[in-house]
């Protein structure tokens, strides 16, 4: 059964879209990632025009992360103060990111930049997470108590210390602001919520407990994606509500399942799975860049003034 999408102007199978939304929703609930880095390439693959795919996936991310966020709020796994601090940095970062994006667009190589960004960041983060969490699992299996994570890194030497009660941290606001800023730049350039960078940054740089990380990341993603949706709707008019609703229908159900599924897995196992997923997407994009394309030509349609 096909459905015609009014803004994308294509007709796509209804169940395919529901399925895509559901799959990404499960991941969103399980790992606290918005899923933008997955759903955007998947939408390209089913034939949605890239501009519509990028803008609409932001809209979908709002729904799936709100859904998962409520589940986490109920369990008091969200550090609102940390979320707002990250967001403040994120806003400034996003503004700079949009500026960089438009500059590169004029140079005509923005696609390449986005792809290289994906390969670089997904590759590095995926590999680091994978090694770290496999080590953690090995230690757990061998029965040896792992050295507790260092609680006093460079993060603790800075001024302006604030107590983040939910995370059990008493640290300077500067590191969260910087993390938010950096993720803001990347999310504007790569067109994603930034959860897959935010989650490891919160674990490894800010030393937040894994339990709180997912909920807080969802909180931050919801705000970023919500802003991006409205911005895209106004500036490029490429948000397709019908497409979004279908992805959302699948996504909200998936997110709830994902949140519950996540509770049955241990934190290290969760991280191994997320690492593998990130590496798989990285590998796929790297292949696209290096293998001889079957069709070297592509068409970019310009709108009539």
């Amino acid at each position, binding site marked *: 059964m*096909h*459905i*015609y999408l*009014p*803004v994308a*102007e*294509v*007709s796509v199978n209804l169940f395919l879209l529901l399925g895509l939304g559901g799959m990404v929703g499960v991941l969103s609930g399980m790992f606290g990632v918005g899923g933008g880095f997955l759903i955007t390439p998947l939408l390209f693959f089913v*034939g949605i025009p890239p501009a519509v795919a990028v803008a609409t996936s932001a*809209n*979908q991310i*709002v*729904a*799936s*992360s*709100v*859904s*998962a*966020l*409520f*589940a986490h709020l*109920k369990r008091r796994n969200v550090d609102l103060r940390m979320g707002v601090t990250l967001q403040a940095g994120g806003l400034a970062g996003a503004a700079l990111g949009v500026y960089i994006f438009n500059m590169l667009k004029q140079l*005509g*190589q923005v*696609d*390449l930049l986005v792809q290289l960004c994906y390969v670089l960041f997904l590759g590095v983060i995926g590999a680091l997470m994978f090694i770290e969490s496999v080590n953690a699992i090995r230690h757990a299996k061998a029965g040896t108590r792992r050295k507790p994570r260092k609680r006093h890194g460079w993060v603790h030497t800075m001024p302006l210390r604030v107590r983040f009660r939910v995370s059990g941290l008493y640290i300077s606001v500067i590191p969260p602001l910087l993390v938010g800023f950096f993720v803001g730049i990347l999310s504007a350039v790569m067109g994603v919520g930034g959860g897959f960078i935010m989650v490891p940054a919160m674990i490894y740089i800010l030393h937040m407990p894994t339990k709180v990380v997912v909920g807080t990341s969802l909180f931050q993603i919801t705000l970023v994606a*919500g802003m991006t*949706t*409205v*911005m*895209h*709707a*106004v500036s490029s*008019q490429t*948000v397709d*509500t*019908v497409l*979004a*609703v279908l992805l*959302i229908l699948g996504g*909200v*159900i998936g*997110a*709830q399942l994902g949140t519950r599924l996540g509770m049955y897995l241990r934190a290290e196992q969760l991280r191994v799975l997320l690492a593998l997923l990130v590496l798989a997407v990285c590998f796929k994009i790297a292949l*696209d*860049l*290096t*293998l*001889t*394309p079957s*069709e*070297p*030509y*592509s*068409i*970019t*349609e*310009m*709108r*009539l003034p």
Partner: protein
Amino acid sequence: MIRAARIFAALLLLAGPATAQEEVVMGLSQDEVAITTAFDGSNILIFGAIRRETPIPEVPIDVIVAIEGPSTPLTVRRKDRKFGIWVNDAALNIRSAPSFYAVATTGPLDEVLLPFQDRRYDISVPRAIRAADGETETADTAAFVEALIRIRTEEDLYQHLEGAVTVDQDTLFQTEIALPANLTEGRYRTRIFLVREGKVISYFQKSITVRKVGLERFLFNLSRQQPLIYGLMSLAIAVIAGWAASAAFRLLQRN
């Protein structure tokens, strides 16, 4: 006076014999295509008759039917290998290319139609594409235009339907053209050419309107005319859907 009138009448006959002797009377199964939510492409039946005042000539007649969707400018890019990865390198700006183009004929187009007639009436697919503004005209231009035609042909946006028009007793003709699901809104110019010995002897033109209706139309117009409201609406739908799903699952779990 009478002589002058006779000469005038004779001149008229000489000037326009091609159009006067055989004319197209055309019908369409539908002259409006409504894009609804369930739209999955549409078949259009184009049929008609050839009206003539003289006996049927010896040489059989050929019929060409061309449907052309709204045109837009576009850029065709080619990827080349640099430092081991494939990047967009060369590009060609195309001034105008139809978003949809189908040509149905009674036989192979290059046998049915003489090249100079194609240039005059812009019937074949390459003629429908206005490639370059002159300055970008290079040896490569042809390769880019070919790529454009190849990609759109694979998507059924450009259709070469040779032999798809059937002519009955040199008088009645018909063909069916399938419009794909990914149609652009607008007027689709439909032209019918009567061709004999490679030359167009008469042609007729009509347009098919393709437009969104109902919810599709409402959402599309809203997104263009009230983008902020549309954006906030999309956002609200997302938040409500997310909250509702969360609430629904909690209820399910309680029971």
